[in-house]
């Protein structure tokens, strides 16, 4: 085993004292399996990302002690939850210690009266909801990684939810949490000091600061979550359109309709339909005049869903949508809770099937800019594919983030033949990612609505996006993590420690 010089035997002994010897893992499998996330990367560089060791603490106190030891010895720490994030938040760029929170997966309290539950952040939402279902309750945070991502990762990435237009996203659903700072100090973050408050005007609103930091500010260990009645009914109609423009009009009207049970609407463009038509059993037999798709989703009591659903159906029909039927609609929607289970393959330019991994570039884009962003993004991928026959354009979708239709999670899915990536093609992909992010910013959007923006490529544009806000990020990072031990190398935050770093002053 090769480990960081700072990880001498006495330090290892200290860690074993804290979490128990069986929860300090140094074997190759434990470390290599925690070196990456699902997003493709040049696998010949895998060893650059392998942590020196893995610890699995069982409590907030143990996490705090592990962090204190790391901070005292200047050893990098990388928090890891499900490891399902797509922007490398859980990837150890400087080796060091991965703190894997999966042992902290207890349900500590279900408060049926105040409609909250308190959990260890290592719990998965699907497993949590299996228990909550017995109480007629649900925690409606629904990423595409629903069966495998964890509550703590949703806090660290400030996750986006498929049904966020109805129930809000992770930032709205997480009421408060215990948080271990880079020095080992434990604070409680929420609205005010309360554990179960949804609104406070006391002091700075720190909850948002400690969500979406991609593990650069610390580790959430125990969270109190907002619960809803488990929906009585679900509706998820899919509609086919003969062209993008009519589908675009329809999705806009659906999103702006103000229907209380509306949980989301999705627009699939021509490239996405082409992709589905070659590999998805629901779409292979669709007639050739299907060029775009729209889906709308509603949850709630049956009488509400039926009333709102009639309105949704009428809007889609009046905009030229052809209903695809109950079987396709219900099956496709159910599959969207579990996209990480999708077997992936793409095509060479000659049409041959190749194994591919899924890279999805996302941005937050206003409705009015969706058509143009779509064309510019596809052009970037077309040029890339022309040079390297290991990238495949799997199309785009735009997904409502809110209940008013103001902005959309806009995503282009790119298949990448990961095993063929070399330094040259990787550099070209990183440049393409940067170009994609640049388009989003040029149209007044944000680099990411969902995945985060700390991966190679788009991360270079974060200072441009945030302006003076990025200087504040540098100041916050330096103040809270004086030794830069917490997930170093992410978000360009190393520059906070450069002598000339001026910050926001």
């Amino acid at each position, binding site marked *: 085993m090769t480990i960081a010089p700072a990880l001498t035997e006495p330090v290892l002994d200290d860690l074993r004292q804290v979490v128990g010897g069986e929860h300090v893992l140094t074997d190759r499998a434990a470390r290599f399996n925690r070196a990456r996330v699902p997003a493709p990367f040049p696998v010949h560089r895998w060893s650059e990302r392998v942590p020196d060791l893995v610890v699995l603490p069982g409590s907030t106190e143990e996490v705090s002690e592990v962090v204190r030891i790391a901070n005292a010895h200047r050893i990098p720490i990388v928090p890891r939850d499900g490891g399902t994030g797509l922007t490398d938040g859980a990837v150890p760029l400087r080796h060091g210690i991965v703190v894997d929170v999966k042992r902290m997966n207890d349900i500590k309290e279900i408060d049926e009266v105040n409609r909250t539950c308190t959990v260890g952040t290592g719990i998965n939402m*699907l497993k949590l*909801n*299996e228990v909550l*279902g017995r109480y007629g309750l*649900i925690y409606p945070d629904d990423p595409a990684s629903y069966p495998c991502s964890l509550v703590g990762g949703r806090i660290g990435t400030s996750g986006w939810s498929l049904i966020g237009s109805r129930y809000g996203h992770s930032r709205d659903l997480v009421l408060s949490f215990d948080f271990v700072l880079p020095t080992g100090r434990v604070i409680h973050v929420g609205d005010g000091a309360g554990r179960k408050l949804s609104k406070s005007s006391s002091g700075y609103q720190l909850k948002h600061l400690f969500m979406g930091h991609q593990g650069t500010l610390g580790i959430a260990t125990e969270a109190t979550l907002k619960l809803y009645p*488990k*929906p*009585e*009914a*679900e*509706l*998820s*109609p899919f509609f086919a359109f003969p062209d993008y423009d009519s589908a675009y009009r329809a999705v806009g009207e659906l999103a702006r309709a103000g229907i209380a049970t509306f949980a989301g609407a999705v627009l699939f463009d021509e490239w996405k339909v082409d992709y589905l*038509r*070659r*590999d998805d*059993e629901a779409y*292979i*037999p669709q007639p050739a005049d299907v060029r775009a798709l729209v889906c709308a989703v*509603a*949850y709630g009591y*049956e009488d509400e*869903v*039926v009333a709102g*659903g*009639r309105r949704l*159906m*009428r809007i889609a*029909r009046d905009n030229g949508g052809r*209903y695809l*039927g*109950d079987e396709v*609609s*219900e*099956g496709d929607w*159910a*599959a969207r*809770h*579990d996209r990480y289970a999708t077997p992936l*393959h793409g*095509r*060479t330019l000659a*049409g*041959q*099937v*190749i*194994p591919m991994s899924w890279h999805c570039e996302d941005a937050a884009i206003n409705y009015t800019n969706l058509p143009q962003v779509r064309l510019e993004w596809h052009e970037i991928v077309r040029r890339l594919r022309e040079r390297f026959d290991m990238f495949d354009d799997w199309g785009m979708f735009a997904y409502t983030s809110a209940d008013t239709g103001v902005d959309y999670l806009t995503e282009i899915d790119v298949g990448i033949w990961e095993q063929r990536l070399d330094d040259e093609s990787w550099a070209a992909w990183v440049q393409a990612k940067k170009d994609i992010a640049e388009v989003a910013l040029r149209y007044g959007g944000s680099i990411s609505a969902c995945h985060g923006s700390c991966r190679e490529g788009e991360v270079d544009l974060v200072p441009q996006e945030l302006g003076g806000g990025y200087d504040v990020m540098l100041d916050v990072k330096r103040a809270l993590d004086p030794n830069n031990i917490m997930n170093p190398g992410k978000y360009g935050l190393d520059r906070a420690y450069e002598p000339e770093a001026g910050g926001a002053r």
Partner: protein
Amino acid sequence: MSTYRYSEQYRPPEARQVTDVAIERFADIFEVDPKLMTAHVVQQVFPNWDTLRIVASRHDHLDWMHRHWAEKVVSGQRLLDELDD
């Protein structure tokens, strides 16, 4: 009681070309056209029962996912028919 015969399991029904890139051997079960899987990824051979089992399991999983999220599913077709009434 059905009788298992090994040779039958490895004799799938004749393929029907559905599109330029897909074929169908069993009803509503589509496969990538084998001619597109010759260079880099070769199609695996499945016994018929296993193909049908995989598809049925997928449907079971999707049914489970519906029940997990809501007590019942509202039919879009029913709502559409009501608009026309």
